[in-house]
């Protein structure tokens, strides 16, 4: 189902298994306090954007860590799905960790 989003890259998805809050914080223009978090995600597949894509065995079930700014209560739910950005997806598929995507 990707006719209308041609050119947009595939995105891995996983399930959040842990969220660790760091000490780093920032305030946005509306006064909301955002905390830098290390989110641990267990990879489960690709998003519906690329429905025929199958997760390579080498990354299936792999636990990866992502950095995110989190703020609202609903950002801290465990066991929910997490969609990775295209550059994070690429880093994992190429097995080349970055400062913000590692394992």
């Amino acid at each position, binding site marked *: *189902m990707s006719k209308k989003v041609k050119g947009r890259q595939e995105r891995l998805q996983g399930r*959040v298994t842990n969220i660790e809050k760091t000490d780093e914080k920032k305030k946005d223009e509306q006064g909301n306090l955002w905390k830098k978090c290390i989110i641990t995600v267990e990879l489960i597949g690709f*998003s519906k954007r690329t429905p025929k894509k199958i997760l390579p065995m080498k990354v299936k079930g792999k636990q990866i860590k992502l950095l*995110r700014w*989190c703020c609202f*209560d609903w*950002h801290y739910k465990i066991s929910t799905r*997490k969609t990775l950005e295209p550059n994070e997806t690429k880093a994992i598929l190429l097995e080349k960790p970055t400062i*913000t995507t590692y394992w």
Partner: protein
Amino acid sequence: MTPRERLLEALYGEEPDIVPLFEIEINKPVVKEILGRNPNGAMDFYEVYSKFGLDGINFWDVPVPVKYLDAKSFIDDWARIWKTSTNDVTYYINGTINSIEDFEKFSPPNPYDYSRLDRLHQVISNNKDQLAVVGGIHDGYEIPSQMRGVSNFLIDLYRNPSFVKKLIDAAVNFNIELAKAMIDIGVDAIISGDDYAYKQGPMMAPKHFRELIAPGLKKIVDAVHKKGIPFIKHTDGYIYPILEDLIGTGIDALHPIEPRANMSLKDVKDKYGEVICIIGNVDVTNVLPFGTIEETVNEVKRCIGEAASGGGYILSSSNSIHNAVKVDNFKAMIDATRKYGIYPHIVK
């Protein structure tokens, strides 16, 4: 990220930058109040959706009059009687297919008729990929039941299922072609608007839904998927008894999870949130028409708290922005979504 990308990301079960906003319809009197003048054509509706900050716009396939009974009533090209009310909203009155013989004399309309598609043409050619444009069709329940008259059709389900199948086939085949025509014009998604339920439960037995209605819906969903775009299903009412079968047709999104029919956004998200995108369900029965701005904001927070986590969620009213909705509450719903619906952002 454009509004179109935002809405599509949610439909694909992904996490956009902010929770997207969508309404299947904003009734004419509300559009008039926002514009400060009578809307004149599709682009006036587009202007309201766009200026108010919605991420997608929908245009339904509307009844096409073939014979006027009086100044306000007409029979459409599906042999249904409609009446336009004083506030300029068109309501279904009854069907005129009283027998199999009547149906055999009936010819379905042409799905490629330009008059059905000109609003989509106009909007898509001016859109520049800004809003997601959704094409509104029907599936195998509303047209057949309205052609026969709803009570007659529900009796037919028991007494004359072969007649029901013929009616459903006609509606399904027409709507497959109509969806294809809309997709060829450039819509980003298709939505079907047939309501299967009222507040207490489905209008038909789950068995009849499974055996007669769901297969027709699945045919349409498959045809839309073959053309490469997502399919949204709208139905009001308490739909738990048919929900598994409905999701089994392969729909990509479900709207609006009606709270006043005891449908729980949290429950549907928890059970099906990884299979489909959830669209809903800010209360449009009490809160948006009669509540305060504070109550509206709290209702938005409830929806986001229950369904936004993990993506695959689009916020909307629990039906449409009807005549009684306060414009200030509608605006508060949009502003609150932009404020409290921001997803975790990537650390750069």
